[in-house]
């Protein structure tokens, strides 16, 4: 479309291949579908999987939001948003409610997503069993047999050692009661949002060449035990800018004497709250 490249960079054949893989992924929630991931003009690890998924689902009428760590203004989010503004010419936004497609790295927005929205996650390691079983061939077999005992043992060992599960991000989930899935490295705080989400959730891992999906209104359970139910953690503070007590907070170091400021990681959420409150609190 611009600069001699096709709309949203990828050629139509490649987009079709990705869409086919996505359809399969939606049909088998939480199952990792191999796909012919392409080299993108951004490096592996920067979100090439998410970018390819976004490119495959994006239409000219879409409004795109890109966040990294919950923020619209982190350099990588800026870079990816610019990439699509340049190659697809789509409208971009920082407002969660305005966006039709949201590409994210490491967070789910605080605002509830809707049926008419798609959230695309950038995934570094799609295989939730990777740290327990490095061979993908073996892990694939374990998924096939729904043989997830190893992961339960890992959680059990955590509890016996620390009294609770020590996984604080990329916390494994069961999708639709069948497949163990990595929710991507979102904080465990965000895990409950995955469950019964009205929006379509797509996950892209470019380097590992895998796609997976959670269709709207699908049950997503964080792994736990009856006597040790899953629980989330957040910094026990209110946001220093908007005063929110229920959002996920970043810890900003303000000096070298232990000074800290806790602020919402979701910049749009924070700004919206401050605008509604007429400026909010100034630290």
């Amino acid at each position, binding site marked *: 479309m611009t600069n001699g490249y096709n709309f949203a960079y990828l050629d139509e054949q490649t987009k079709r291949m990705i869409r086919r893989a996505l359809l399969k992924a939606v049909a088998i929630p939480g199952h990792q579908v191999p796909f012919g991931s392409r*080299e993108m003009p951004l490096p*592996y690890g*920067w979100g090439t999987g998410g970018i390819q998924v976004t490119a495959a689902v994006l239409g000219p009428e879409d409004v795109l939001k890109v966040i990294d760590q919950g*923020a619209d203004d982190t350099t990588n989010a*800026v870079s990816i948003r610019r990439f699509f503004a340049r190659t697809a010419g789509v409208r971009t936004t920082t407002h969660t409610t305005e966006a039709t497609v949201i590409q994210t790295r*490491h967070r789910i927005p605080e605002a509830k997503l809707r049926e008419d929205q798609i959230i695309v996650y950038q995934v*570094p390691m799609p295989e939730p069993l990777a740290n327990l079983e490095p061979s993908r061939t073996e892990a694939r077999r374990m998924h096939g047999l729904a043989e997830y005992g190893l992961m339960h043992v890992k959680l059990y060992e955590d509890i016996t050692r620390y009294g609770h599960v020590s996984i604080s*991000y990329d916390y494994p989930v069961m999708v639709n009661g069948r497949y163990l899935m990595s929710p991507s490295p979102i904080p465990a705080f965000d895990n409950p949002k995955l469950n019964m989400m009205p929006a379509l959730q797509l996950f892209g891992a470019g*380097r590992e060449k895998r796609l997976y999906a959670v269709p709207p209104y699908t049950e997503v359970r964080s792994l736990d035990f009856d006597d040790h139910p899953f629980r989330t953690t957040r910094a026990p503070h209110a946001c220093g800018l908007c005063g929110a007590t229920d959002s996920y907070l970043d810890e900003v170091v303000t000096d070298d004497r232990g000074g800290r400021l806790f602020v919402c990681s979701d910049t749009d959420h924070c700004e919206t709250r401050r605008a509604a409150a007429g400026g909010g609190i100034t630290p």
Partner: protein
Amino acid sequence: MAYVAVKGGEQAIDNAHAWLAEQRRGDASVPEIDLAQIAGQLGRAVDRVMAEGSCYDRELAALAVKQAQGDLIEAAFLLRAYRTTLPRFAASEPVDTARMLVQRRISGVFKDLPGGQVLGPTYDYTHRLLDFALAVGGTPPPAPQAEPDTETLPRVNDILAHEGLVEPDTAADAEPGDLTRDPLSFPAGRDLRLQALARGDEGFLLSLGYSTQRGYGNSHPFAGEIRLGEVAVEIVPPELGFPVDIGDITLTECQMVNQFAGSKTAPPQFTRGYGLSFGHAERKAMAMALVDRSLRADELGEDVTAPAQDVEFVLSHCDNIEATGFVEHLKLPHYVDFQSELETVRRMRADAAGLAEAAE
């Protein structure tokens, strides 16, 4: 100190790129390097970028080297990213290296052989003394010329094959896979393994090949033959139905010959390891041949004990574009995850302190 959000990302990126461009150009009073100089005088760098970038184009590879300030992995990445946008017209016929216009051809297993040993342009017997005359520059005296040898040189493996001493070269009938289009899955056939190794990182393959020589999956190799030269690339356009020469490429090919004690199904004989690389890249081709052979352990009924014999391990980690991406992505912000770890560690420390107090 007031809280400064990470605002200004856009401006920061623009400024960073401007500084990078300035740094790339270097001292403006020094003449700018041009692509012909890079392609002509830094040819081995260009060869490596073409091989690992999986794209045979000296000019584009030279541009990538220039753009990447000589960072060859970055240059290979630039070339790969460009390559994916190119349409495919056709698949070539297999190139015939027996018909290579040879610049260099040596065998480590025979003193002499039909066609002879051809040393060619090699560093092998140079003394590695810094040549201070080169710092000044100048045109070297012309190399001695001879009539080009028009006879095709038989491949050493074909010579050995006459006696049945080396395993037959078995080309599968099936259409070879394409790992640039379809994701690699395991077990991976030799077609896909060779593809992955051909674009794999030279340093990684070199170390793995070296490890097989030091006992981690010993495969008793001999350099059956190394040849370097130009081969014709032919395609068969469907509307013509006969091969058409579309150009020549320079290749380095290495045939390793490996001892093999025999198994239940095969008599004792020599087995093969194969290496092929764009350009003049002997180290790469030889390392590739060593690793190719070690990856055949399973197929030949050998115990798989060493990293270089583990197909999934080698193929999953030999691509330097993937490797550099994932290693370097650690510099992207991870503060959300780190924050959750901070809270978890604080909680664990509080729990531990509580337990210690209770015990007192």
